[in-house]
C-alpha cells in the first residue's frame, strides 16, 4: 500500500502574525516557517502505518514556492521515503491545490492520501474534501483515530457533538486532527539521511492546472483590538466587578 501525504509550509504556529502596513497581506519576511501542524500528524500516521508493515511507501508532496522544499525535506527526515515539490507562486487556493493533488494521485496511484484537516494560515479547511470530490473517493475528515482493516479504514472523527466513527473503502482521503498521534522529532542522523532522499520537482503549469486565484484578496487588516483590562486583587473584588460593573452575573 502506498500513502501520499500532502504537507504545507506555513508561518510557524508560535509566531505572532503581523499585518503588512499596506494591508496587502501578513508579514512573511524573516519570519520562521514550519510545517502546518496537523500535516505533521498526517506524516506521522503514514510513517507509523509503514512501520507496522501495512504500507510499502510514503510519499510527501508539497505545493508552493521553491522553499516549500524544506517542508518536504522535513517529512523525509521523519520517515517519508521520497518527496514531490510542485512549484507554484503566490496564493494557491485549495481548489487549485486539490486539482494539482489530483494530477499527482493519477500519476502515483496511492491507496491513501493523508493531510492535515486545515492549514493554520488561511484556515480554509477545504483541500482534503475537494480532492475527495474530484477523485470521487470517500473522505474521513478530522480524524483522531485510524484503523486499517484489510481494504477498509475505520476512522474516528472529531465532530462538534463528540466523536463519530465511519468505515471507508480504500482508496480514500483522510484529513488529520491534532489528536491523531504525537508527531516525532527528526533525529540528526535521519535529517542527514533525508538529504539523500529524492525530491522530484515539477511546475504547476506542467500539470496543466490553472492556479490563478478565483478569489481577490482586497485587503488584510488587523482585527479590532480589545481594550486593556484591569487586574483585580481578590476573588471578592472580581465578583463585585462582574456583578456591578460588567453586569454579567
Amino acid at each position, binding site marked *: 500500500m502506498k500513502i501520499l501525504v500532502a504537507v504545507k509550509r506555513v508561518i510557524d504556529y508560535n509566531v505572532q*502574525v503581523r499585518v503588512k502596513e499596506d494591508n496587502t497581506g501578513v508579514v512573511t519576511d524573516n519570519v520562521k516557517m514550519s510545517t502546518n501542524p496537523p500535516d505533521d500528524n498526517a506524516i506521522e500516521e503514514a510513517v507509523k502505518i509503514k512501520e507496522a508493515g501495512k504500507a510499502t511507501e510514503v510519499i510527501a508532496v508539497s505545493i508552493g514556492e521553491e522553499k516549500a522544499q524544506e517542508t518536504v525535506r522535513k517529512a523525509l527526515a521523519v520517515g517519508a521515503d521520497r518527496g514531490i515539490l510542485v512549484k507554484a507562486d503566490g496564493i494557491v487556493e485549495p481548489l487549485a491545490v486539490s486539482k494539482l493533488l489530483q494530477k499527482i494521485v493519477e500519476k502515483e496511484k496511492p491507496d491513501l492520501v493523508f493531510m492535515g484537516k486545515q492549514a493554520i494560515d488561511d484556515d480554509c479547511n477545504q483541500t482534503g*474534501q475537494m480532492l475527495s470530490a474530484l477523485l470521487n473517493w470517500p473522505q474521513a475528515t478530522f480524524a483522531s483515530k485510524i484503523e486499517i482493516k484489510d481494504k477498509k479504514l475505520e476512522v474516528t472523527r472529531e465532530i462538534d457533538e463528540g466523536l463519530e466513527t465511519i468505515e471507508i473503502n480504500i482508496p480514500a482521503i483522510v484529513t488529520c486532527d491534532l489528536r491523531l498521534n504525537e508527531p516525532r522529532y527528526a533525529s540528526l542522523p535521519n535529517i542527514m539521511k533525508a538529504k539523500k532522499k529524492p525530491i522530484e520537482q515539477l511546475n504547476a503549469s506542467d500539470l496543466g492546472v490553472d492556479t490563478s486565484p478565483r478569489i481577490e484578496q482586497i485587503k488584510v487588516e488587523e482585527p479590532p483590538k480589545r481594550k486593556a483590562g484591569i487586574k483585580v486583587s481578590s476573588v471578592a473584588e472580581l465578583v463585585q466587578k462582574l456583578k456591578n460593573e460588567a453586569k454579567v452575573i
Partner: protein
Amino acid sequence: MSVLLIAEHNNKEIKPFTLNAVTAASQIDTDVHAIVIGQNCDGAAKALSELPLVKKVIHVEAAYYENFVAENFAPVIVKLADNYSHIVCSANTFGKNLMPRIAAALDTSQISDIIKVISSDTFLRPIYAGNAFATVKSNDTKKCVTIRPTSFDPCESSGGSAPIEKAEPGEEFGNTKFVKREEIKSDRPELGTARVVISGGRGMQSGDNFKLITTIADKLNAAIGASRAAVDAGYISNDHQVGQTGKVVVPDLYIAVGISGAIQHLAGMKESKIIVAINKDGEAPIFSVADYGLEADLFEALPQFLEELNKLNTIQK
C-alpha cells in the same frame, strides 16, 4: 438569483446555528431557500418553513441520509445548484465536511468561515487564527460560502409559512458507511450558544479537578470549555475544545481558568463580551485579552469564587 441554505439538523429538529446561517444567507440575497436532507426529517422541514426569512423549503429523504454523510449529501446540492447564485452553510464540522465537496464539484473556490457579508460577492473572514481579517471578493459565478454562526444573530424562528417541496434523492455513495456517533449528552447550555462559558486549561492538572469548574458552571448556568492542552492531556473530551481548531464562542462572560492563552486558544474566545482570566502566572498572555485578570492559584481562587457567588442574592441566568 437565490441563495440555497443547507440546514443542519438531527432529523427531528434544526440545530440552533441554522438560524444564524439563515440570517447570513438573507444578507446575501433575500430570496433564501433552505434544504433539509435526512431521514424522517419532517420535523426539521416544518421548523424551517416557519422561519420568516425562508421563502421555500426543499425536503429530500432517503435512509442513507440519516447520518449526514457528505458523500451522499453533496450530489443532491450539486444537482440543484443551477437555480442558485450562492450555496451557504454553517462553518461547523457539518458544513466544513460538506461544503468543499460541493464547491469542488461545481468548480468554485469556496469562501470559508465568513464573519460579515459586505456585498453579494465580498465577505470578511478571519485568517491566521483571527490575527488578521481578510476582505475577499469571489469572482466565481456560483459562490459557496460557509459562515461563522457566532458572528450572525439567529433569525426569527416563528411566524413564517414557506412552502415545502419534496425533491428526489440522489444515489447512495457505497464507499462510506456510518458506524456510530458518540454524542456527549449534557444538561448544560451548549458551548457554542451559552451566555456564560467557563474553561479550564493545563493548569487544572487533572480531569478530576475539573469538578471545581463544574460546580461554578452549575451555579452560573454556564457551558464548560477547555484549551487544547487540557483536551490533549485527557482531562476532558474534545467537544469542549475552544480555539482555532475547536469551537469559536462569543459568550457574554468567558472565564479562563489555568489557561495561558496560546494564539490558538485566543482565536476561539477573544470576541467574548467580558473575559475573566484566573492564572497564577502574571505574565500569561491570557491577561492581555482579559477585562478582569486575577493572578492567583486556581485551587484557592475557584472555591472562593463559588463562595462569593453563593453570597449573591441573585445570579443572571
